[in-house]
């Protein structure tokens, strides 16, 4: 055998390392750089030189240091052991790194993606002689108390089962079954498989969006709903509550699994997620939230190239669990940091910049990422979905900047966070005028069938009241509310009830942090009931101020706290009270 050419570092510029005069690398190949084995990826190959982006700090890398090709594209290991863990941008478990390096993250930490020592209680569900294709489930592993891991045949493999291991405890590297393919070759299949992060995992077909991802957040579920398998963007300047909204969604949405990617964000925030999710109980399973969560943390001071990879690592993990037939929700906080990482690397490569220094391929990268979301029939014939919710941090809170604009093109829900709402401590600060959901018509049948036939109608009325208020506010700002005619004053008053009583939601209040759809519906219904009843009063010539003085508005504003989520009978009492009060006022 000919000795492989020894490749060495020629130049270093930030995270970009060059190797000269070699033909041994292919694009997006994983490489190990230097004596410390820093993980990198090939990003440009020319006849003269090969460029490698390194996912760790390159301090101390010298010309002449060895560069070893791994022979595979940058890949992640998929298998049991991921759920409940916290990983960095290239799937290295941070707990294992901490055990090795202590408080600070060392470099070239050679810790594999998954624990290869741990033995998993495995139940094989296929038998010898069965024909399996790529994506078929062959074994089940109880990964956490609440999460069942379905091990699948890698997508590119198919054939007849010629051997199965008995049920028992296995590591992720031990063969569980053996498959004989069409050519008569035998392949061992184990619990773990590898997959290149930049390549979408295959599925059978895409499905239409018919089921909402229920989040328990009123402004989202009732006003701007998102479908399972859908895409959403949360843009907002700093301090508007992007991260808070992402946390609320991760805690309460009805997905089977959450992949939470902290991409270039604060270290303390990841710690908070770890702490909080370790204590909170998932209302559906009764187990800790960490048992259905995978955290990927690449904080803002961790290497920038790994930040770029972390988004792909996250979506690959999400797709893997989707293929088992689960509904997976991926939160990316924030995609702007990912775009900035692209810009940074692009700058180092001296590529011609497009808008604001971002590379010209920013839109195509964004669309490729968001297109990996979807509701699908998997290769094994189950229904699964990946919902992607990406936070965007626009520079200077300016929504016309390239990342926000391009994200808007490829996502179908836009929850615009508003600085002025946040300053007034109106949370979630989702602006009802700028936000939209294109899934609303697709999901209306679900809400109307499952909750109430009037759901869609009430939603439209609530939204139109808010719109009317905003145009009236233009007048109020100029001349005050006192001069408005009574029917318009009523709209302003009711809109206040909607804003404060319905749209505002207190994430720290035990009753209000998660609100079931039924209660959301009843709240809308009661508010509209008050509106209709007051209208009849005004039509009879009674002043609108009477209703305001009756204290009903305050009662409605407080109903989110006063009426428990588990007992909605309070709404009937409230409706009756509205009728009585209005009757009394009409008689005066």
């Amino acid at each position, binding site marked *: 055998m000919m000795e492989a050419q020894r490749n060495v570092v020629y130049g270093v510029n930030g995270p970009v390392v060059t190797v000269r005069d070699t033909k041994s690398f292919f694009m997006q190949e994983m490489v190990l750089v230097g004596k410390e084995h820093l993980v990198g990826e090939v990003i440009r190959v020319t006849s003269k030189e090969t460029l490698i982006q390194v996912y760790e700090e390159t301090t101390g890398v010298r010309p002449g240091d060895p560069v070893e090709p791994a022979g595979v594209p940058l890949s992640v290991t998929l298998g049991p052991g991921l759920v409940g863990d916290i990983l960095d941008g290239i799937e290295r478990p941070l707990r294992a790194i901490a055990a090795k390096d202590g408080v600070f993250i060392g470099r070239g930490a050679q810790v594999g993606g998954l624990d290869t020592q741990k033995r998993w209680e495995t139940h094989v569900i296929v038998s010898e002689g069965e024909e399996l294709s790529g994506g078929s489930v062959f074994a089940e592993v109880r990964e956490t108390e609440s999460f069942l891991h379905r091990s699948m045949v890698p997508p590119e493999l198919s054939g007849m089962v010629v051997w199965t291991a008995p049920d028992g405890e296995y590591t992720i590297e031990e063969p569980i079954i053996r498959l004989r393919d069409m050519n008569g070759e035998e392949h061992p299949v184990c619990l773990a498989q590898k997959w290149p992060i930049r390549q979408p995992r295959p599925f059978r077909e895409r499905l239409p969006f018919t089921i909402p991802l229920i989040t328990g957040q009123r402004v989202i579920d009732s006003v701007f709903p998102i479908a399972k398998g859908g895409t959403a963007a949360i843009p907002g300047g700093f301090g508007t509550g992007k991260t808070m909204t992402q946390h609320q969604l991760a805690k309460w949405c009805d997905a089977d699994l959450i992949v939470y990617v902290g991409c270039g964000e604060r270290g303390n925030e990841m710690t908070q997620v770890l702490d909080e999710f370790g204590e909170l109980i998932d209302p559906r399973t009764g187990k800790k939230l960490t048992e259905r969560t995978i955290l990927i943390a690449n904080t803002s001071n*961790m290497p920038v190239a790994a930040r770029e990879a972390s988004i792909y690592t996250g979506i690959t993990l999400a797709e893997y669990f989707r293929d088992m037939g689960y509904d997976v929700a991926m939160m990316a906080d924030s995609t702007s940091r990912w775009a*900035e990482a692209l810009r940074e690397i692009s700058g180092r490569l001296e590529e011609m910049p497009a808008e604001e220094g971002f590379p010209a391929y920013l839109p195509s990268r964004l669309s490729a990422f968001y297109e990996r979301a979807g509701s699908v029939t998997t290769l094994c014939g189950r229904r699964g979905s990946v919902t992607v919710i990406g936070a965007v941090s626009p520079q200077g809170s300016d929504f016309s900047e390239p990342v926000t604009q391009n994200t808007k093109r490829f996502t179908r829900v836009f929850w615009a966070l508003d600085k002025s709402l946040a300053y007034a401590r109106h949370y979630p600060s989702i602006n009802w005028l700028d936000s939209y959901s294109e899934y609303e018509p697709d999901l209306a049948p679900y809400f109307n069938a499952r909750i109430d036939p009037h759901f869609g109608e009430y939603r439209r009325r609530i939204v139109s009241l808010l719109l009317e208020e905003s145009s009236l506010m233009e007048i109020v700002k100029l001349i005050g509310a006192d001069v408005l005619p009574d029917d318009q004053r009523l709209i302003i008053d009711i809109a206040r009830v909607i804003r404060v009583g319905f749209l505002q939601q207190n994430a720290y209040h035990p009753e209000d942090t998660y609100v079931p759809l039924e209660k959301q519906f009843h709240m809308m219904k009661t508010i509209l009931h008050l509106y209709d009843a007051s209208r009849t009063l005004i039509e009879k010539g009674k002043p609108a101020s009477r209703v305001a003085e009756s204290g009903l508005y305050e009662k409605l504003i407080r109903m989110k706290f006063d009426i428990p989520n588990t007992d909605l009978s309070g709404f009937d009492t409230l409706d009756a009270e509205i009728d009585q009060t209005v009757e009394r006022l009409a008689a005066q």
Partner: protein
Amino acid sequence: MIISYQGLNEVSGSLIALEGVTGVGYEEQAEIRMRDGTVRTGKIARIDGDRVIVQVFEGTSGFSLENTETVFRGRPMSLPLSAGILGRVFDGTGKPRDGLGPVFSDCVRDINGSAINPVERVYPRNYICTGISAIDALSTLIRGQKLPIFSGYGMKHNELAVQIVSQAKIAGEERGQFAVVFAAMGVKNDVAAYFRRCFEDAGVLDHVAMFLNTSNDPIIERTVTPRCALTAAEYLAFDLGMHVLVVMTDMTSYCEALREFSSSKGEIPGRKGYPGYLYSDLASLYERAGMVKGKSGSVTQIPILTMPNDDISHPIPDLTGYITEGQIVLDRALNGKGIYPPINVLLSLSRLMKDGIGEGYTRADHASLMNQLFSSYSKVQDARALSAVIGEDELSETDRRYLQFGQAFETRFIAQGQHESRSIEETLDLGWEMLKLLPASEMDRLDPKLLAEHFGEGD
């Protein structure tokens, strides 16, 4: 074996290029000795084969292609550290400038630091009582937080920083375990002297380590000043178990130095000419705050930055706000009214306060009071806007009450003396007193119990 290289191949701005260099690593420290014996420091900014680009911190003035001798130190730039750094004054690259000789070091640390592993962090919860009402009640400072002050030229950010440092010290229960690290980047000499004097007056000077790069010091040196300061802070906190308060001023000068360096390297600029990696670079500073498992110390950062043209959407405050855990924003209009500290409470925010206030930390009613004050004060702005259009006389009774409340809130609650330290009880009680200027029906964030407690049954 240390090889020295005679002469240079290129000098351009703060960068020098050497050819024929072997065996050096990226970001390694370089020492450039001139004929007259003066030594300047630099670090390797780029390597292409045997061609090496070195960034010289003190500038390249006086360099020719022949009159220098360059030595590479074989390690990245490092700082010698021991408990003896307290009470000392260093220049922007960490060399003593107080004439007291070198630091006898226990260890030497790479000034670039390493990222703290998120799983090893302890989520900060203990609040620091600064004695300043606007901060304690509405954007509480938490031990281990990074809370910048966004200011503008001519506003009293330095006074505010000094007040925070000196009053926070008094509240700290473990006095001996308290230290201040002060990093000055491009500030005027008299500002640096002011800080020194104030630390002396507060009697903490022997607990302060100062890293000074004043406005007449080399500009490129500024890019390492905060790194030296934070390396010292991490050592004091995580090796010696101290609670360290790091004051860094002025971050705007730091970013400008970074921009100058970036453009001299010919990098593709991002917004307003700042390098595309400004976010990552700032994060590599601000993220060096917090508390970690198994260590009793903490690093709390109070960076100060002046917003060019008072523009909060300028890249420097904008990117800072995305990294730090809140911000304290100073307001020119309040400053113009003579209110000190001129804190704009609506724009200010502390992200960590929600878990550090209330029962067991400050007082049970803190969160409700805070929400109500924010909500009421934001309505003051609407009332003022309306009054500007239609005149105060035309306002409704409620709106007039809001104007009164706004006035009182600014002049009595936000405003306080430069040496006045209010306890948390005083601050919260004052907050209730302010709210009572409004009718009970306007209290939309209080639960009925608190409402009855403070406003009685009827009003």
